[in-house]
Structure formats: structure tokens, C-alpha cells
């Protein structure tokens, strides 16, 4: 996998999620593109490459979502690294386990994988955040309410993201040669023949 392509794609997706996607919000749910991109990478890249991409994406997301602690006049914002990194790693790992059964060269497959990836990531995030809220955080990292409610909200948002992500997934399929994936096969790997990833 070409890492510079991956880094640019991750940055573009994070910027779009933060600034552009609220324009497509539906009933307060803003679709996200990161599950689509992570699922796409996990479908094509080597296992190691996909997991590294997930960790980098997760750390970037951790930087953007600080936890709130106790302050004297107002809550204290502290970026906590780790929860999103683990969540994204879990999401990528789920797709890595599923991809043998998936017909990957289809935008609908990427959308389905995005939903599975997002759900696994949400489950992991809520588990980690729930653990943290028992001793470290005055309010849970997911914002408020019960963990089950947070999971429900995340599930709905992931479904919306998967539906909205069909078009970006279709666009991503066209970029496969640019990524130089190790397991993409001769048709999408730029004619160099299939190589087995690490």
C-alpha cells in the first residue's frame, strides 16, 4: 500500500467528517466517511497495513475528541489518546476476518463492510469509555446517557453513514490502482500480479 496515498485519504476524510458532512445530516445524525474508508482499506490492504491505518486514523480521531474532566469554573478538556485507536483497530480487524467471504469489487460490499466496521468500532469504543467512566472520567466519553443508548445512536448513525457512503465507496473503487494494494490482484494492482501481504 502506498502510505502517502493513505495519509492523504485519511486527512481528507477526517476534514470532510468534521466540516462538510454536517450538511448531509438527517434527523440530527451526521453521516461519517471514516468507516467507509477504513472498510475499503481493510478489504484490500495487507493485514498489517490495514491495522496500521486503523491505528493512525484512531489516534487522529482521539486528537479531535477530547474528554471532559472537572474544572473549577468550566469542564476541563483533555484529549485522551487510545479509545478511538482501539475502536478503529477493532473495526478494521472485523473486516479483515470477514473479507474472505466478501466480493470486494462492489460498492455495496464496501458499504456493508463500512456498517460492520462502524458497529464493531462503536462497540469497542463504548466498552473502553464505559470502563474509563467507572474510575477515570466524570462523564463518559460518548457524551452522556447510558452506554446502551450511545450504542443505539451509533448504530443508527453507522447505518446512515453506510448508505451515504455508497457513492464514496464507488469512487474509492476507481482509485484502487493508485493505492498499490498488495492483495488487490492483477486487474486492480496495476498489472504487476497478485502479491500476498504480510
Amino acid at each position, binding site marked *: 500500500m502506498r502510505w502517502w496515498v493513505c495519509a492523504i485519504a485519511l486527512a481528507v476524510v477526517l476534514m470532510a467528517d468534521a*466540516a462538510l458532512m454536517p450538511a448531509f445530516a438527517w434527523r440530527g445524525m451526521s453521516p*461519517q466517511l471514516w468507516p467507509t474508508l477504513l472498510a475499503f482499506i481493510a478489504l484490500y490492504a495487507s493485514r498489517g497495513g490495514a491495522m496500521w491505518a486503523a491505528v493512525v486514523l484512531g489516534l487522529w480521531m482521539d486528537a479531535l475528541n477530547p474528554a471532559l474532566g472537572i474544572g473549577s469554573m468550566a469542564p476541563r478538556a483533555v484529549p485522551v489518546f487510545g479509545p478511538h485507536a482501539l475502536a478503529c483497530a477493532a473495526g478494521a480487524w472485523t473486516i479483515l476476518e470477514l473479507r474472505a467471504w466478501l466480493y470486494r469489487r462492489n460498492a455495496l460490499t464496501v458499504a456493508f463492510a463500512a456498517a460492520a466496521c462502524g458497529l464493531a468500532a462503536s462497540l469497542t469504543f463504548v466498552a473502553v469509555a464505559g470502563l474509563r467512566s467507572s474510575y477515570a472520567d466524570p462523564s463518559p466519553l460518548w457524551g452522556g446517557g447510558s452506554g446502551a443508548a450511545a450504542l443505539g445512536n451509533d448504530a443508527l448513525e453507522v447505518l446512515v453513514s453506510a448508505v451515504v457512503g455508497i457513492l464514496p465507496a464507488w469512487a474509492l473503487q476507481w482509485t484502487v490502482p493508485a493505492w498499490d494494494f498488495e492483495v488487490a490482484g492483477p486487474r486492480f494492482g496495476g498489472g504487476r500480479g497478485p502479491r500476498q501481504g504480510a
Partner: protein
Amino acid sequence: MLLASRRILAVVLCAAALLAVLPQSAQAPWSGRLASFLWAPLRPGTAALAWLRDRVRAPEDPYPNLPDELRAALEERDRLRGELDAADLRIGKLEREVGELTGYRPADRAGWRPRLANVVERGGARPGGLLGIDIGVAQGVSEGDPAVVGGSQLLGIVAAGGSEGRSWVVPLDDRRAGRIDAVVHPSGAAGTGKGAAGREPGRGPRPTVLVQLLPQGNRTLVGELEPGADGRAADVRAGDAVLLSDASWRPAAQGMRIGLVESVGALDANPLRRRITVRMESDPARTSRLVVKVRESAVQGGAR
């Protein structure tokens, strides 16, 4: 290759797991700086995409379902207040320049001063994320300072833990922000309702109502209405303005608008009591510029 090593990947994942369970105090000394470093390359693109977002879908009408005359008056007031804040910013800049040239020290301006800020960071993964702004301690911003848009619409509060040139704003609708004391002000001038001159047959102008609001995310807050001293339910209607009246907030924030009453209904747990849903006038997810009301003493301290 370094990235091809499964052992290194395992070590990184273990480190992420360890970080994920560390208390905030263990990460606070360095995580803010690292987060700002990671986000720095994304700032220009985020600003450009925010501009595109507003072209794709224009921001919502801040005053829906109001009579045209009242809506026009509110918008005109907000516009003038925005211009007033802009003029304040300009005056402050000129005063600093005059001070540098002549040693002149401007008089205290009622304890606070507006500071314009751009939203440069925003959590995209979860709703109700904090807003990162490009001013911090160096510009006099301190925890508890109110953030406003449109002249009078309260957006949130500055969180503790900011750095020299960067701060975090906790939006009002963030559930972690805690309860907020507010007062429901009847819509129309001097508490008038729909009746002529604000009076209904047999009743005077509607009184203001105190309420404690709980953030719910998605620009909404809910509050439970207490019955009045006479045992009757408080008279609150959709469209009434909700203003901040919370002693734990700075004086500069008191009386600023939180939003409008969106609906009044029965409380699920106790149908005999009523609850109100308040919708924020400002939209934290789509705000790209805001004004922080910083304390005058902090400005002088920060300028040193």
C-alpha cells in the same frame, strides 16, 4: 520495513490500550500539544470544506415559526449586536495601537471585552463534540468565558485546559456540560403573547419562568417546569425565548439567549408535570466563527 513488523504493531496496539485506560491526569500534560500538532495540517482544508458546507446547505432559519414582524425585529437586533461586537473589536485594536504609540491606557469596559475566534478544530466522530478555537491564554481567554455568535446567541463555554493560542469550547447542548439555570422570557415585547398589547382577557403580561435545563445533544436542552406558588402550571409557550440566568456563569453571559422553546409537553415520568424542549438558536456543528467574551483583567494579564 518498520511498518511490516507485526511485533511493532502489537507493541503499538498495547500502548494504545494502555493509554486508553490511563486517567486524564496522566495524559493532560502532553496530550493537548500532541492533539494540536496532529490537527494542524487539517486546518486549512477544514475551513475550505466548512465554506463549501454552507453553500451545499444553508444554515437553518434561527427564528422559525415566528410572525414576520417579530422575526425581522429579532434579526435586525442580532445584526446590530453583531456590528456592535465588530465595532468593539475594531476599537480594541485601535486602542492597542494608540496605547503602543502614546502610552494611553483605555478605561475598563464593564469587565469584559470581545475576542473574535475561528473554529479550527472539531470532533467529527461523535455528536456534540467540542470546538477548538484559535485563541487561547495569550489572548486573555480563560476557563468559563462565554462564547457567543450573532451578537446575543450563547454558543457555549470555554473549557479549562487551553493553551497559549488554542482553547476548547463546550457547546451548550453537550450532555457533559451539566445543568444550566435559565429563565423563559415570553415572546414579544414586554412579555406579550399573541394577545393585543400582550394582555389576554383577565390576565396580565405573562411572567418570566425559571427553569433548569439539561443538555440533550442535537441543539436541544430539556427542562422540567415547576408549578407556580398558586399551584398552577407555568405559562410557557412554543416560541418563547430562553435566556441564561446561571450564577455559575460569568456576568458577561447573563441574559444572553440560549434558544427558543420548541415544544411544551407532559413529563414522561410524571404526566401531571410539564417539560419544555429548548432548541439552541446557534448551531455548534456549523459554526465557523464566534466571539469569546474575555475578562478585562485576563486581557491585560495575557497581553503582558
